């Protein structure tokens, strides 16, 4: 291979383009470095590292916000950059800003100036890992991202080094985390052994038997029925390979750990209890959110693999008939034809069932254990386990969703968005109470409704939203998840819906316990009012307003605009405007077109492989093709 200068320049241009897509992450890394360096100049000044952190996050935020809504992979398929992950990154960065605020306004002690750079550096490091998790599109990248998110989290969990409970939680976290990572890496090595690739799309294709199907197709077209039969047998065996199943299972254990899904959730309550409140809040939302996004991405990739297999299979009958017409009809040919006809594409139902059950068990376990928690942080920890269960249930629908995949993605995004605000709000109230009283017991809330009605009202709103009271965001989030579950075929979707509803009912009891203490219990100890600072007041009010706003239907259309998930086989469309600038459609319409072009191209390829289909078809055709394609996709996903 010789590289001409022009070729090299092109490669470098591609590299810089990829780097440009990763600007948010790069900003975080630069900020981390800056935070480490600034204390050398002035150790006592807290505002230097805080300023550096805020500057880094805000720059990252600006880069995320100006992101062009295309879906693409960068660095040879290592990372997928698409609106879906970008939306999560946006939420995550805003959330990180709020966490920095929460840390900065919290009661200061002697060690704070020393601790602040460490804390911020670790926080941004974990955030960096989480943004990578949201984009990871390669098994190796998943490991790297998960570790990048986990290692700073371990340190954060043990940040109160003088506290026994903090060390206990951190140790538990590290042990669980390293075992889960070991499982995950071992599982990935198995997956690699079976599929021969680390690229997620290639893995999914191999799992669906796509390479073998292509082999069978080409063998049949060159009149090699024996080869075709062999390839088809391999294709049939591919999805049911036990090694692959074990590998995927072990890999999901690693992700389940980040999700704090049962049965690898034991670290969660201890870490949440022992860690400083800012860390607890951060981990409860960000770590789970990133893992949910990763889970959805894996599901989508596998769904695409299944679709690809189905697409290939749909052309088999014609190929087999054609081969018989042209070649010599023989017994082997007839046998091959019969096999081609009876081939049914895999659906990865087992995977979805497994993840659905994981979600159901997690939600139920979290809710049942939350029942008798007297510590508010632990109660909220178990509640967050239950909520990640709900999100996992929603994600399990992804593999069946087919053309309605946007529904599921929108549901998960909406739930995450709401979850950020209700958890941030609830934990912040707990922080305020704990700071004042020194403990986080529910009993400390006794009579709060009379002592500080404002704080009690806010906590009530957050708890009711966590429960799912109509009129608040949590309710709509659950409704959207329920709607997404309808896509699950068979009784599975209904079973999950029933689990979710019953869990909602169970959760009412423990969410009302703090309310009960605040409003109904008589305060015999004459506790004084709990004053919240101005900054806390602002944060809490923003959370409450967001919950009411989302509860009244706000943001439900917003999340729909960010549901495009990178799907392999989809051509790169840099800017929705340029794709549709010949028409007078708005940007949102442009996004539909992005999908459409992908589908239309697939169709064209299917009908006539000689046509290179590089030209963008005009809108009308695209729409028609889209319509036709939707129905074919639907019939595929029903199979």
């Amino acid at each position: 291979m010789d590289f001409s200068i022009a070729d090299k320049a092109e490669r470098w241009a591609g590299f810089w383009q990829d780097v440009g897509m990763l600007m948010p992450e790069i900003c975080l890394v630069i900020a981390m470095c800056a935070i480490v360096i600034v204390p050398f100049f002035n150790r006592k000044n807290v505002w230097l590292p805080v300023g550096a952190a805020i500057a880094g996050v805000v720059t990252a935020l600006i880069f995320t916000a100006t992101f062009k809504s295309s879906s693409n992979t960068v660095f040879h398929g290592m990372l997928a950059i698409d609106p879906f992950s970008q939306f999560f990154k946006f939420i995550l960065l805003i959330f990180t800003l709020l966490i920095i605020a929460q840390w900065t306004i919290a009661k200061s002690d002697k060690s704070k100036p020393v601790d602040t750079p460490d804390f911020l550096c670790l926080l941004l490091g974990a955030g960096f890992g989480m943004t990578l998790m949201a984009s990871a599109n390669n098994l190796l990248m998943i490991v790297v991202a998960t570790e990048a998110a986990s290692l700073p989290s371990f340190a954060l969990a043990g940040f109160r080094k003088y506290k026994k409970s903090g060390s206990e939680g951190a140790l538990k976290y590290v042990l669980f985390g390293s075992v889960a990572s070991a499982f995950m890496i071992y599982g990935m090595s198995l997956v690699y052994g079976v599929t021969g690739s680390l690229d997620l799309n290639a893995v999914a294709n191999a799992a669906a038997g796509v390479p073998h199907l292509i082999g069978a197709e080409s063998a049949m077209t060159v009149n090699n029925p024996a080869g075709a039969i062999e390839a088809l047998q391999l294709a049939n065996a591919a999805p049911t390979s036990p090694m692959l199943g074990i590998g995927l299972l072990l890999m999901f254990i690693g992700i389940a750990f980040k999700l704090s899904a049962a049965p690898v959730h034991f670290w969660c309550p201890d870490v949440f209890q022992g860690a400083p409140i800012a860390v607890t809040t951060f981990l409860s939302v960000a770590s789970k959110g990133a893992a949910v996004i990763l889970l959805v991405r894996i599901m989508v990739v596998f769904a695409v693999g299944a679709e690809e297999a189905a697409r290939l299979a749909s052309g088999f009958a014609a190929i087999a008939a054609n081969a018989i017409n042209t070649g010599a009809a023989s017994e082997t040919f007839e046998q091959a034809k019969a096999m081609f006809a009876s081939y049914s594409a895999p659906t990865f139902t087992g995977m979805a069932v497994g993840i659905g059950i994981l979600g159901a068990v997690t939600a139920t376990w979290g809710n049942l254990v939350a029942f008798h928690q007297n510590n508010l942080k632990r109660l909220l920890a178990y509640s967050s386990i239950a909520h990640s269960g709900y999100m996992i249930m929603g994600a399990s629908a992804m593999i069946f969703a087919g053309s309605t995949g946007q529904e599921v993605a929108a549901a998960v995004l909406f739930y995450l968005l709401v979850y950020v605000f209700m958890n941030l709000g609830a934990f912040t109230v707990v922080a305020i109470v704990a700071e004042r009283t020194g403990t986080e017991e529910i009993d400390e809330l006794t009579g709060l409704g009379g002592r500080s009605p404002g704080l009690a009202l806010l906590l009530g709103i957050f708890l009711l939203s966590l429960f799912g009271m109509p009129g608040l965001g949590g309710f709509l989030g659950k409704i959207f998840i329920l709607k997404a579950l309808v896509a699950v075929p068979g009784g599975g979707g209904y079973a999950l819906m029933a689990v979710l509803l019953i869990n909602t009912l169970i959760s009412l009891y423990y969410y009302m316990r703090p309310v009960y203490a605040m409003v109904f219990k008589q305060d015999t100890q004459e506790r004084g009012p709990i004053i919240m600072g101005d900054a806390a007041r602002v944060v809490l009010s923003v959370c409450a307003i967001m919950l009411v706003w989302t509860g009244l239907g706000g943001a439900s259309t917003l999340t729909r605009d960010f549901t495009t998930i990178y799907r392999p086989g989809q051509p790169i469309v840099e800017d929705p405007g340029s794709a549709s600038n010949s028409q007078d459609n708005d940007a949102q319409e442009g996004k539909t077109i992005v999908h459409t072009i992908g589908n239309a191209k697939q169709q064209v390829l299917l009908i006539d492989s000689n046509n290179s289909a590089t030209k963008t078809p005009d809108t009308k055709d695209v729409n028609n093709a889209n319509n036709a394609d939707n129905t074919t996709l639907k019939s595929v996903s029903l199979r």
Partner: protein
Amino acid sequence: MTLILNLMIFLPTFGALACLGAPTKDAARKTALGICVATFAMSLVLLSGFFGSEANEAGVWFEYSASWISSINVFYRTGMDGLSLPLVLLTTALSILVVLASWSIEKNAKAFMALYLFLLTGMLGVFLSLDMFLFYVFFEISLLPMYFLIGVWGGPRKEYAAIKFFLYTLAGSICLLIVMLGLFFYSGEGTGGNGNTWHMMALQGKTVTETREDANGVDQPVKIDGANVAALFQAPPEKPVTPEGGAANGAGTGANVGAGEAATAGANTAGEGESDSSAGKYWGFAKAAFWLTLIAFMIKLPGVPFHTWLPDAHVEAPTPISMVLAGVLLKMGGYAMMRITWPIFPEAAQHFWAAVAFLGVLAIIYGAFCAMAQTDWKKLVAYSSVSHMGYVTLGIAVMTPAGWNGAYFQMIAHGISSAMMFFMVGVLYERAHHRDLNRLGGMWLRWPKYGAWSLIAFFAGMGLPGLCGFIGEILVLLGTFEAAGSFDPATVYTYGIFAAFGVVLTAGYILWMFQRVYMGKDKSEYDSYAPVNKREYAIMAVMGVAAIVFGIVPALVFNITDGTFGELMKTLGVTG
């Protein structure tokens, strides 16, 4: 008019905020009273609007609809018809009396008034929403203030009663939510490609207009032929059905996502092609859904065996809250049955009529016996509510015009009489601080005027001819016997006879109670009791006069409901 209607729903919420910010307790009370009077005035304006336009008597009046959560086709849709107007009037009128009755509450009076006004929004919203989703939101929202009103201002076991009330009704709500979602998801197969709908009237088989976003994101009105939607949830026609609706469902969901106009058009043809064969497709769901909604609303009503929260809640609740609980909140159950369960699942209702009617008769008899056994006066009145609501269940279950009219009138009458009974109990309890029937007696001699108004209250509850309770009970009984024409006569007569026997039991426990409280000798311990004041007498007088007026001129209600009930009977497939 639509403006007034929607303002009426939300005015109390604004009033609640005003109450919280009121400078003094007295100011909060006066604000609450003012808001309630304004709400009542608005409902009177709506009433006059109804009499001004009798032309569209049968349809929905003052309908207002605006897209709310477009991604799942949720609309903010309110409107009123003969089924809701009398209950709205009852709610707004009673709310004034309730505020007056709670004048003596000193503990956190501002919060009390605010919560009460918030509750008022919930109640009015339930009666006036025409969208299943909106209905559910109001249905749930009305729980919350009630929980706090019982839990903070209640009696000794208030926490227990409050959480029991909350958990019970919430379990019911979850049942309702399941059905609601099912109806929504399945409805897409009958709308001819226009996506799923929460529209109550469409689910009942009416043709309605909704707006949907077209491919360019512009709202376009679309017509939804509810007949196809409603047919999905009825018994399948005789000939075997070929299940081919799957594609239409998928396409309908696709259109929902906003995949494009072309997709909608494609689904449209598919939907039309299958509209006939899909009739009865979800009959199995409909049968389950009928029971689930029935459980949800029976808990609210309450019907035996879901009634056990009621005695606790009533006994612990402060008097004004008991009044509104018995007077309005229970009616939400009956109203929802008439608005949702029966019109959407008429054939399932026909299928299960005997079981439901049995529950009604059971409630009548069981409630009456329980009432008879009580020594706590308030518990007795609470159980009398269970018994009276049994008539509502029975009247609805038999599906005859007389039965439905009777059940509806029974709700209105019970709203007056039971609220009044609870008030009577409350007046004495405030002074005696106990409600032990065996320790009372001789009240008539002490306060003859109080005794006289009580007589009206309890006899109205008993169903004495000339008072409001009579009309409802007699119509339900008539309707039950009428049902012999359409259902198995032996069962019908058995139920009729038992229900009629319930009237005797009612007389038994009311008269015995009256004897224990009001008859006998005056007692010296009453000397320390403050005499009944003017405010209390005024409340008694208003309700007492209402009890008499509605007993003599039931047409006051029937004039409003006739048109709507005619329509409903057609929906139920009942002729005559």
